[in-house]
């Protein structure tokens, strides 16, 4: 076969052939997404560095200044123990991010793995995964979490205590991480099914699209097809789900705290602050308003960012 003679042409330097850079340009043109991103970045910064910058220690009590309304010294006022609410909200940001990131990460790993396997291989594997998903979703979430916590928390803690007394091994001394593990674990356990469903549906639908057949007809390997054709096309919806899921996990943590199965006081979390604030909101509304407003803001910001990312990652739809 002869090579076709063709005019040599000047071709520009190879541009950054990156989906991400393009997405970034498109994202910047979306105001809501930029707002969401801004808030998320601010919150993330607060979570990382906030606790070092707060005017007061989140634990330090000032019994002479209890339940103070917002003022210049105490931006969000003080609570019933005279602790600075602003500092506690800031520390709560760290808790919120910790919970959201860990829970979402576990849920995404479980969900994406199961969903992709189910979608790709189908058959009995698909049926088993779908059954698991339906089972998990049909159990009332809060009930499951309360049951897990109630049945596991105290036995594990007391077992650790007895181990510590018997061995004096420092590993058993601190029981706070059991707390976290149970909160994170049970939240992840109820959070993975939507990711599994989403990814399964994505893989199923992308697998039968003509451009996949076209890529196969080009002789490309399954690995390349998976990495460059299937995954990038499945990514948009997953990123939206993850972004919204981070916000949801924060809200979920609050719901758990409200039920007394969340992160335990005195570690400040927006959830336990809201639940404390709810008891006295008629007298000291700022104790409810401050953490609730920040939680609402975070949740909205994550969801705006998710929608923006979806549009940005999908070059067809975005304006």
């Amino acid at each position, binding site marked *: 076969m002869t090579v076709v003679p063709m005019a040599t042409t000047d071709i520009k330097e190879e541009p950054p052939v990156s989906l991400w850079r393009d997405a970034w340009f498109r994202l910047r043109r979306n105001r809501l997404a930029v707002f969401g991103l801004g808030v998320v970045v601010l919150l993330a910064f607060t979570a990382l560095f906030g606790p070092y910058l707060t005017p007061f220690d989140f634990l330090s009590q000032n019994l002479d200044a209890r339940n103070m309304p917002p003022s210049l010294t105490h931006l969000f006022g003080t609570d019933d123990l005279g602790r600075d609410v602003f500092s506690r909200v800031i520390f709560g940001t760290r808790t919120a991010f910790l919970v959201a990131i860990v829970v979402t990460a576990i849920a995404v790993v479980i969900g994406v793995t199961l969903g992709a396997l189910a979608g790709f291989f189908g058959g009995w594997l698909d049926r088993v995964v779908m059954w698991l998903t339906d089972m998990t979703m049909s159990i009332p979430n809060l009930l499951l979490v309360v049951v897990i916590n109630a049945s596991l928390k105290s036995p594990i803690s007391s077992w650790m205590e007895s181990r510590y007394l018997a061995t004096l091994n420092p590993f058993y001394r601190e029981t706070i991480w059991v707390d976290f593990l149970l909160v994170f674990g049970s939240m992840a356990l109820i959070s993975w099914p939507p990711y599994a469903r989403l990814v399964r549906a994505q893989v199923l639908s992308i697998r039968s699209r003509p451009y996949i057949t076209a890529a196969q*007809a*080009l002789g490309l390997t399954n690995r390349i097809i998976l990495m460059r054709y299937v995954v990038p096309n499945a990514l948009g919806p997953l990123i939206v789900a993850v972004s919204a899921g981070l916000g949801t996990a924060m809200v979920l943590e609050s719901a758990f705290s409200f039920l007394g199965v969340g992160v335990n006081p005195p570690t400040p979390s927006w959830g336990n602050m809201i639940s404390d604030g709810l008891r006295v909101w008629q007298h000291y509304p700022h104790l409810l308003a401050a953490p609730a407003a920040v939680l609402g803001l975070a949740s909205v910001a994550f969801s705006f960012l998710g929608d923006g990312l979806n549009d940005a990652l999908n070059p067809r739809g975005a304006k």
Partner: protein
Amino acid sequence: MTKTNTSERLLDVKGLTIEIETRNGPATIVDGIDLHVNKGETLGVVGESGCGKSLTMLSLMRLLPNKIRVTKGTAHFAGRDLQTMSNSELRKVRGGEVGFVFQDPMTSLNPVMRIGQQLAEPLIYHRGMNKAQARKRAGELLKLVGIPGAEDRLDAYPHELSGGMRQRVMIAIGLACNPQLLIADEPTTALDVTIQAQIVDLVKELRDRLGMSIVWITHDLALIAGLVDRVAVLYAGTVVEDAPVDDLFARPAHPYTQGLLASIPKLSDERASRLSSIGGTPPEPGRRPKGCPFAPRCPLAEAICHDKVPVLESLVSAGAHRVACFVAQRKLEAA
């Protein structure tokens, strides 16, 4: 050009049968197709939609969807058995030696990949080019298929191009590695009439320049009359007539072909794929008649047609003109 010397055959398909698994057991979709393409030849494959054209072509590259399988027959490309070759050898044939152009340019390109990169992919994979070489070649290919401002278009996403431009991109991708055979599966069906003619002209020009063989699948015989050397007419998963294009237009032998030709003016008016001059519809897979598959719709059907299946045979008068019809064969023997 239309000699049937086996050694010249680039693609040779014999008795290919494709079945689909259904709840009521396997149903035959393609029933013993015989097709061949000689080196440098352009074959038109014509038939109503649903008659198995696309599945036949996909089966050659072992790309059939789930539950659809080849159950009988052989397929050779350049003397090599496509059905038994290893997967890695097959991947070299796909894209490297046989290029594909699909029906719908809107959905056959990866929506999240720039077209320059989609063009570069096979060049990097089959020709071992580096990114810069592949990009340069991609620009040349876009120019080759007549895309204005070719180099600037390398960074466009598919949705930024019109349907006709996208189909040109598909053709460029199909031709990227200088394949010996280009299989175009209804490449113009999704396009406007004026664009259709442009694409046909483009492929004709490219063929004359590059010298590859082509299988052009269509339900519109008139569209490809000036492009193809030979035509195979498909009906319900079998080849019912196979003839040099001029012969076919001058002396259509099969009643179905005659019906196709009679309906051409109407077809180009309405761009319809239904045959207005032939009543009824093709049999569904799994409900094929016992004898000639066309018998239920055939104006010339006789008793034998409902009982026995006619085979594709050369007419004595014209070796290259083959037809699968009892009546046509008898008539031409007599003449």
